[in-house]
């Protein structure tokens, strides 16, 4: 067992699970989507991205790309949330919430691809 691989896989899968946890629920309902969960997703995703830095293989490049996509999606969701709650008189409306959740839904997709690639790589190594 390789500790580095464990940490690497841990962060990637945690990013996916947290992301899914935030995404799951009624799209419009702010009660179904916890801001702390979004925060945790962003932090874990950033760490997962950094872990993928400097890998020169084709698979490494793919993994890095999916992580960057997830980051872009999640950070834009956070920016939308910050703008809505601080700079809009109406605050976080149902429509805004739908935007935030759908953005994080895109990130879920990117993270799923990431994990699929990871599983593919490990099964490839088995052979």
């Amino acid at each position, binding site marked *: 067992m390789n500790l580095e691989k464990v940490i690497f896989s841990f962060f990637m899968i945690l990013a996916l699970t947290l992301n899914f946890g935030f995404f799951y629920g009624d799209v419009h309902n702010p009660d179904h989507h916890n*801001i*702390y969960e979004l*925060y945790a997703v962003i*932090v874990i995703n*950033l*760490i997962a991205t*950094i*872990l993928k*830095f*400097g*890998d*020169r293989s084709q698979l490494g*490049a793919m993994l890095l790309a999916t992580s960057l996509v997830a980051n872009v999606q999640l950070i834009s969701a*956070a920016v939308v949330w*910050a703008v809505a*709650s*601080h700079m809009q008189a109406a605050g976080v409306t149902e429509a805004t919430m739908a935007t935030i959740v759908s953005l994080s839904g895109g990130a879920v997709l990117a993270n799923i691809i990431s994990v699929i690639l990871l599983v593919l790589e490990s099964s490839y190594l088995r052979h």
Partner: protein
Amino acid sequence: MNPVTSIILRQMRAPLIVIVTVFSIAILGMVLIPGVDDQGQVWRMDFFHALYFVSFTATTIGFGEIPYPLTDAQRLWALITIFFSVFGWFYAISKIVSLIQTPLFKKAVIHSNFKHSLSQINKKFYLICGYGETGQDLVNRLVKKAINCVVIDNNQHAIEELEVQDYIFYVPGLEADATTPSQLEYAGLSHPLCKGVIAITNSDSCNLKIAITAKLLHPETPVICRSEHTDFEENMRSFNTDHTVNPYDTFAHNFAMAMKSSSLHLLNEWLTGVPDTSLDRPITFSEGHWILCGYGRLGQRIYKTLRENHHSVTIIDTVAELRDEFYRNNPGDDTQFIIGTGTDVATLKQAGVVDAVGLIAGSNNDSNNLSAIMTAQMYNADLVVVARQNEMMNKQLFQASLADIIMHPSEIVARRIRTLLTNPLLIDFLEECYKQSNEWINITISRLSGAISEVKPHCWTSRLTKTGSPAVFEALSKGRKIALKHLLKSPIQRQEMIYCLPLMLVRNNQKFLLPNNDFAVHADDQILFCGISQAEHHISQCLHDMHTLNYVMSLKNSPDSLLGRYLRGNTKQKRRNND
């Protein structure tokens, strides 16, 4: 991905994770710890404000307690944030600094820069292996002729020397072992624009290895090798190395030229030397006795030349085995062979310095050579002195010693290769001159001195091909007759002639030496010119520009523009109608 970026990213993983972790914990703490707003109500920072606060605190910008003054609990957390985040920044910065200083990283940067500059080259270039005295001299001359070079040398100092040289364009240099095939490939051997490989390291075995590598991997690439030992030279020739340059053979040949005719020696020195430097003095060799100090690779060759020209010789060398070998190889030779350095009065007197006509200081030790010259000149001021200079740094000493001919192996190799690369016709010309009579050579040198000024001339080859000289080619293909005298007229004032002399004209492997001014040129001729520095530029104007060519041939210019041609066509038409 660029290896440099890849190294940085891989090394920055840990510091970046530390920073992200510290930030995320600090932000979370700020969000969770309750504060008080200006009305005394309980107020919690949200993520937006917490990120803002932590960002300016952690980066030590410190705007203050925004938006409301902090409570003591928040201040405690801010304190912890400051210490941990500053530690995180320092860790990241120190990691980058130490990374930049590691030799591995420096090497990656240098290789990456080299690769980049190699990919930027869009002209044909020569791959020069070895940047010692010969390499420096050669690169300097080639760059002045606007020829691109790439240098590979396994000595770090040599590459550093290349970096600080002030060439008019950038010469990429790689610190690597040229005898390793992969390194040679990396340095540009397999580059489509690589025009040739020049192996001029100071070791014959290295040069041999480079030549083998180049010829095996790219048989069509020309290879020029320096070799100082005959067996290596034969080895290199055996697998089609295009040229091998042996400084001792080359010098012995030059010396034989000088023995045949001092004018021929002058011709060689003037034409192959560095342009715009002062002209050499003529040397006269009178019949008589010669002293040869040093019977090594140079001495043996010179001895042969001297004997062929019927001079008596005394050899001085320190090695007794060489004497035994000499007498074994030359049975019945009455040549005196003295064991000694040739630097002391007794040995030189024994060798007959007082009545001698010439001295050759040809050992591989510069101090001994200089000492021999100075001692000998005290007893015989009229001596013709040939000195072998081994080290570049002793150049001034040899010039001050008033030696008539200075033989510097590096310089000879550089000069020979330079001529081979930039002006191969010149070598053919000098070989042709060697076959001519002394009177012919004397006439040539007097014509040459008339055509040039007080400094050594420039030599160049003009090719009357479609690309080399479009104007002349076009005129010739239209059936116009052009003679050499037309090309030699000044494009500024056609009554004046350019200070320039056509040395040789080559047409279908047929060589015409010193063609006269009425000689008619044909398409695809090659002409070897020599003249003052502006002459090349003036002649090339004539070769390239139809208007200039028309001017020097006293012809009217035809209009080039559409309107001009139309108007002219109309007037011709009218004239014809009137007739």
